[in-house]
C-alpha cells in the first residue's frame, strides 16, 4: 500500500475537476466527514465558527491511519487545525503542516459550496 504518496496537496490553480460530495447541511457544525472521492478518502471540515470549509487527506501520516475526519478541530493562535484522535498530532487545516511534531505534512484540497452542495477540487 502506498497511501502516503497517494495524497498530494492541490492548489486552486491546479484543480482540474470539482467533485460534488454531500449537501452542506449534512456536515456537523465545527466538525468533519470522510468522503470517498474517486479512490481517495478526503476529510472535509465544516468550520462553522470561522465560516470556512477545509479539506485534507483522511490519512494521519503518524501511524498511517484513515482517521482525521473523526478528529476535533480548533485553532492554534489564528491557525485552524485538526487533532488526530489516535495520538493528538495536530495539523494546520490551511497548510497541512504538523504543528506539534515532525510528522510529514498532510495534503490539503480546495473546497467550495455551490447551490448548497459541497465540492472538493482535485488535480
Amino acid at each position, binding site marked *: 500500500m502506498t497511501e502516503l504518496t497517494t495524497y498530494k496537496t492541490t492548489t486552486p490553480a491546479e484543480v482540474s475537476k470539482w467533485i460534488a460530495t*454531500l449537501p452542506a447541511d449534512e456536515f456537523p457544525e465545527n466538525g468533519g*466527514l470522510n468522503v470517498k472521492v474517486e479512490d481517495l478518502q478526503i476529510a472535509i471540515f465544516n468550520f462553522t465558527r470561522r465560516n470556512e470549509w477545509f479539506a485534507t487527506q483522511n490519512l494521519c501520516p503518524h501511524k*498511517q*491511519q484513515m482517521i482525521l475526519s*473523526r478528529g*476535533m478541530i*480548533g485553532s492554534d493562535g489564528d491557525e485552524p487545525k485538526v487533532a488526530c484522535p489516535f495520538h493528538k498530532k495536530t495539523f494546520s487545516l490551511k497548510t497541512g503542516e504538523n504543528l506539534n511534531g515532525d510528522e510529514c505534512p498532510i495534503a490539503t484540497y480546495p473546497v467550495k459550496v455551490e447551490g448548497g452542495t459541497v465540492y472538493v477540487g482535485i488535480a
Partner: protein
Amino acid sequence: MKRIIVVGNGMVSHKFCLKLRTIAGSDTYEVVIYGEETWPAYDRVHLSEYFTEQSVDKLLMAPSDWYQDQNITLKTGQLIISIDPQQRTVLTHEGKTDHYDYLVLATGSRPFVPKIDGVEKRGVFVYRTIEDLDQIISYAKNIKRGAVLGGGLLGLEAAKALLDLNLDAQVIEFAPRLMPRQLDEAGSNTLKSEIESLGIEILLNKNTSKVAGTDQMAGLEFADGSQLDTEMLVISCGIISRDELAESAGLEKGARGGFKVNEYLQTNDPNIYAVGEAAAFNDMIYGLVAPGYDMAEIAANHITDQASKTFTGADMSTKLKLIGVEVGSFGDALGDTPGSIPISFEDKNSGIYKRINISSDKKHLLGGILVGDTSDYGMLLQITQNSMAIPPNPEDLILGTRGGQANGNTILDLPDTAQICSCENVSKGDLVDAIKSQNITDLKELRNCTGAGTGCGACSPMVGDIFSAQLKEMGQTVRKTLCPHFDYTRQELYSLIKVKGIKTYNELLDQYGEGDGCETCKPAVASLLASIWNDKILKQETIQDTNDRFLANIQKGGSYSVVPRVPGGEITPEKLIAIGTVAKKYDLYTKITGGQRIDMFGARLNDLPKIWRELIDAGFESGHAYGKSLRTVKSCVGSTWCRYGLHDSVSYAIEIEDRYKGIRSPHKLKGGVSGCRRECAEAQAKDFGLIATELGYNLYVCGNGGANPQHAKLLAGDIDEKTAIKYLDRFLMFYIQTAEPLNRTAVWLNKLDGGIDYLREVVVEDSLGIGEDLEKDMQALIAAYHCEWKEAINDEKMMKRFSHFANSDDYDPTQQFSSMREMKKPAGWESISK
C-alpha cells in the same frame, strides 16, 4: 591531537566522556575507553530493575552507536593489567599496549567479601554487575529461599530483587540497625517494619560465622549459635576501590585504598587522573553517583585547560525509594556534632519517621533523617547546605505550621548559589537566570535548556516549585488554566456553567473563551457539561474525543471495541451466549477485561449500530468503557457462595454500579466490593472500594492501579450500606466538581490540601456544610441516566454518523486484519504502510 585513555566504562566514565565531548570535539582529543565488562556503560543505580525487566538495553547510559557518533573508541571485554607511566602506555590482558597523553582511571570498585568460613561455596554471590545478576537469576530458578548479607542501601535493593525472583528473602545485618550510616535506631525501626510488611525478614545483630554445606551452600551459622535455613547468599557488605593498577604505575593510594587524588582529580602522576569510586580524596571514597559525576566534570575541565571549580569533597546526603519506602538522610544525619539537639516525629500508623538535628544555638539545621515521607527532603537539604535561618519553632520544619501564617523558608528564600540538581550541577541562580533571560514559560523548556532534573530526577519537584515561584514573582500568574482558549481552571468553569446555565460549548467559548477551541478544552468542557446536566453525550458530537463520539473505544487500524455493562461481573448463561453469538456473527476478537466483563474488538464503524441493536435486544446496555465515567464495580463472589464471605458483596456491587453508571467525571472511575478482608475484589486498588467487616463495611477511596499504583485510603470504617452510599455520593460529587481534567481520584487526593483527613472532614463530618447539596446534585445525575446506545440506535439522524464514508456505505478499504490464535487481530502500525 591528544589521546585520552579511559580505563573502566561505568556511569562516571560515561559522564567524563560526555563532558569532554561537550567541551572539545573529536579533532582535539582522541578518546579510547577500555571496559572490562562486555556491555557498554550501564546504569548501576537502577540495577535492581534488571530483575523485573531483564533488559540490558533499558539500563544502557547511551545506545552503542553513541560512541561511534561521538568518535569514541570503546573496547569492551578488555582488562588493563598494568601502566607504564614513563612510556605513557597501558598493557591489556591480551598483551597489547596502547599509548596515552592523559590517562583517566575510572575503574570503580568491587564488592567487599568478608572472610567467612565457606564463603567460596556454590550459591554465594555478590551484587555488582549484570553478570552477577544473570548468575543470581539462573541459580534462583531451582531454590525457594535466599538471604542477603548486609542491610545497607544496596543490600536492601538486593533483597527486593530476591523477592521479585519469588524467593523467601531474609536480610542479615551485623549492626543493630539497617542502613547504619544513614539512619538512627528509630528510623531503622520504621524502615524495618515497612520492609517486613512486604514479606522480607530482617535479622539484626547477626555475626555470620559460617556458610554451611558441602560444595554447595545449605544454610548459615551465626556467632550466637543460631542458624538460618537458606539456599542462596547475596553479599552486599560495602565496596573496595579497584586500585590494583597503582603498584605498576607507582601511584599513591588513600588510607582506605583508592588512587589518591588532588582537588583536580590528578594522581601523583599529573597525566593520570582518577574519578568515581576508584578515587580517594582526603582518604575518602565516595560510593555515590553524584560526587562521581562531579569528579568527571572537574577532570574533563582540567584536562582541557578549562577554568573550573575544584573538588572539595561531597555531601553524602541521599534520597531514594527503597523497596517502595521513601528514605532520606542528609547532612549530619545522626547528630554527631557536639551539642546538637534532635527533634523527631514518629507515626507508627502511617510508617513515617522524621528527625532533624539543630545546632546548639538553635539557629541552624545540621542534618536529619526522613523515612516514609521524603517530601520535605529538598527544602531541608537546602536549608542545611546554605546555613539558612530556621523558624523560631524548628519542629515546623517537619510538622508544618499548625495554624497561623506559614513560616519563612520558601523556595524564594534560597540563595542563588543553592545547588538544586546535583547530577547536572544546576543552581537556583542558573534556573532563575534561564527563566528571566530566555523568557521561559514552559517547565519542559526549562529542563531542556538547563539540564536540571534530567538525571536521577530527584530534584524535579523543586525545579517545578522554583519555576512556579519565579514566574509568580515576575508577575505571571501560574494558574492551571484549561488551555490557551480559556483563562479559567476546570473548577471555575464548572461553577460558570452551572450558575450561568450554559448548555453548549459554543455558548461557553463565546462568553468566556477566545479563539476556536482545541482538542484539550473541547472534551474537558464536554465532560463538564455532561457532569453538570447529564445530557445526551451524543448531542455534543464534535467536541468529544472519538470514543465518546462513536460510543466505543477506537483501536489500532480504526476499528472499535464494544463492551456491554455486566454489573458486578454477574452474567447469565443466556447473556454469555448472546455475546458469543454477536461476536461470531461480526467476527470480533473477544477478551475478558480486568473489570470482569467481556470486550469485543475489531468492530467496523459501519457495524457498531447493528452490533448494539442485537446486544440491546438481548438485554444489555452500554458499558461506558469509552467514557471518562464509571467503568465497573468489581466484586468477589460474596457470602452467597463463599465460605468466608461476611456479606453479599455481589448484590451490593451491582447496586452501586447501577447507581453511578453513565455519570461523567474528570477521569474514569473504578470501584470494588469485597465480601471479607481477603479482598478478592481488590477494592483497595480502586477509586472507591468497600470491604465487608463483621459490623458493616470499611469504605476506602482514591486508590489507583495503572501507571502509578496507589492504595486507597480508609475514609470511614464499620458503616452500614446506606451510610456508605451517602458518603460515596458526596465523595464522587466533590471529586467531579473540584478535580482538574484527566486527574484520577488518587492524583486529585494527592493535590488536595490536607489530604485524606480534609476529605474525611468534608465528606463524613460535613465541615463545609455542602453534604446535602452534593447528595442532591448526585441524585439529579442518577435520575437523568439513560443508555446512550439505546438512544443512538433509535435516532435516524444519529445513525448516519456510524459510517466510514459519509457518501458511501463501503467499509474502509484500507482496514486490514490478520489472524492470531484462532481469532483476528488488526494490522500492526508499521505494516499498514508497507
